[in-house]
């Protein structure tokens, strides 16, 4: 049999897929080089961790059983009987947490570098939506092992959704699959976690990456002004291979960290959920929900005749809306400091608030 020569295979593929256009695009893609360039790696790292979630998630699906009677036992089976099951599950859980952390770093770096300004507003909106989706991934995935902590976290989280005026009760029933958290809720969360959220996230991610590709990477206004003052072009480096190779180093480091975490601190399973047991002392949600948890904890039963939880939920919702509208709310002319710098200070306040509330939960669990 005559095998076609490698060059002919390439020609055959090229004639049908025109991959050279992609290659050409990659050759022209350049990344700005300046003192804040390190933050550009966060987007790629987020994408890498998302890929790792998909890969380990698919592996977990081979053994996981989404019912109240079998979920806990199936995760126990993965952790104790399946070869390297502990590793796959621990990497899935640890990388989910690392993904949320890197996503926050990516978002705040975009905020402080003012990369949301014209014409990148839709890139910002899709990024905020992806953050919300990632938190929904975390919330839905947390219930899947059907353990005590997850049961009460879902009880509280869905009750918060239920407290939203007008549509609250509909949302509560939609999420729980009924009035209460039951095995039906677990099945729904499984559907959200492995089908609805991945499909939506893939579409949004596609849009986000397309826009990043279309507009290129944003250069902070201060750096742009500096280059203009000095009468020079801003420095850049080729994406292929220079930037991608640096990305790869970061991804290898991330794999190393995750493997070490999985080996030294395998993800715990806890005790099986019992809907008729009291919430255990020291209960708290995943760290990225802690600032909201502590806010709701600190509010008294009533404030000016209104239920405290409603004020808390309204405040958190309003904060989310303000964050989404950042590109329209920044009053400053880019690069001119003044009011724009003051706007950045709100970002610092947001980080401080979230950090203090989160640390509070860990330092004083009863407080």
């Amino acid at each position: 049999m005559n095998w076609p020569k490698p060059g002919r295979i390439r020609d055959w593929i090229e004639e049908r897929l025109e991959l050279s256009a992609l290659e050409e695009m990659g050759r022209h893609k350049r990344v700005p080089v300046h003192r804040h360039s390190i933050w550009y790696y966060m987007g790629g790292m987020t994408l890498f961790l998302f890929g790792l979630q998909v890969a380990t998630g698919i592996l977990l699906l081979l053994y996981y059983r989404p019912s109240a009677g079998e979920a806990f036992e199936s995760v126990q089976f993965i952790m104790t009987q399946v070869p390297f099951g502990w590793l796959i599950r621990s990497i899935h859980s640890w990388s989910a947490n690392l993904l949320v952390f890197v996503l926050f770093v990516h978002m705040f770096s975009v905020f402080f570098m003012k990369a949301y300004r014209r014409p990148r507003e839709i890139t910002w909106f899709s990024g905020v939506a992806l953050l919300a989706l990632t938190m929904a991934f975390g919330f839905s995935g947390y219930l899947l092992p059907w353990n005590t902590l997850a049961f009460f976290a879902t009880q509280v989280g869905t009750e918060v959704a239920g407290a939203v005026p007008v549509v609250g009760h509909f949302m509560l029933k939609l999420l729980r699959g009924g009035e209460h958290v039951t095995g039906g809720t677990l099945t729904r969360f499984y559907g959200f976690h492995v089908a609805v959220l991945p499909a939506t996230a893939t579409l949004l991610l596609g849009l986000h990456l397309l826009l990043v590709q279309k507009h290129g990477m944003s250069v902070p206004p201060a750096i742009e002004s500096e280059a203009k003052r000095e009468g020079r072009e801003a420095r850049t480096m080729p994406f292929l291979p220079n930037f991608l190779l640096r990305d790869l180093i970061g991804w290898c480091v991330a794999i190393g960290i995750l493997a070490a975490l999985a080996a030294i601190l395998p993800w715990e399973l806890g005790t099986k959920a019992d809907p008729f047991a009291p919430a255990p002392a020291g209960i708290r949600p995943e760290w990225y929900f802690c600032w909201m948890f502590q806010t709701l904890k600190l509010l008294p039963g009533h404030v000016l005749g209104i239920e405290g939880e409603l004020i808390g939920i309204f405040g958190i919702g309003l904060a989310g809306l303000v964050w989404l509208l950042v590109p329209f709310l920044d009053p400053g002319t880019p690069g001119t400091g003044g009011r724009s710098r003051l706007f950045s200070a709100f970002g610092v306040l947001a980080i401080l608030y979230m950090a203090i509330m989160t640390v509070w939960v860990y330092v004083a669990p009863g407080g």
Partner: protein
Amino acid sequence: MCVSMLYPVARYISPPEVPEASTQSVVAGREGDLKPNQGKIFRFGEQPGILVRTEDGGYRALSATCTHLNCTVQFRGDLKQIWCACHNGFYDLSGKNVSGPPPRPLEEYKVNVADGEIVVSRA
């Protein structure tokens, strides 16, 4: 046409109302199950209830669902109060919300002891 396609989907994802038999009375335990200043969770229909034996040997029964965000409460013997671990809410033994975020009291049930059984019913 869009509406005719979306309506069945919207109705499908919203779970049907399943009528729950309204529980009026249950046996929450037997005399001697609890020592004075002790509490336990019992099943009141589809919801948890809490039974507390007070220091003087009497019984109190309440809904165990926190009025803040629906966690299940527990009895704290050291404080002689009912506590929700989720957001640090406290109730006294009559179910009144006394501190923390709970906005309303817990529903109180009636307790009767007959033939060694502790019978809890809606007040």
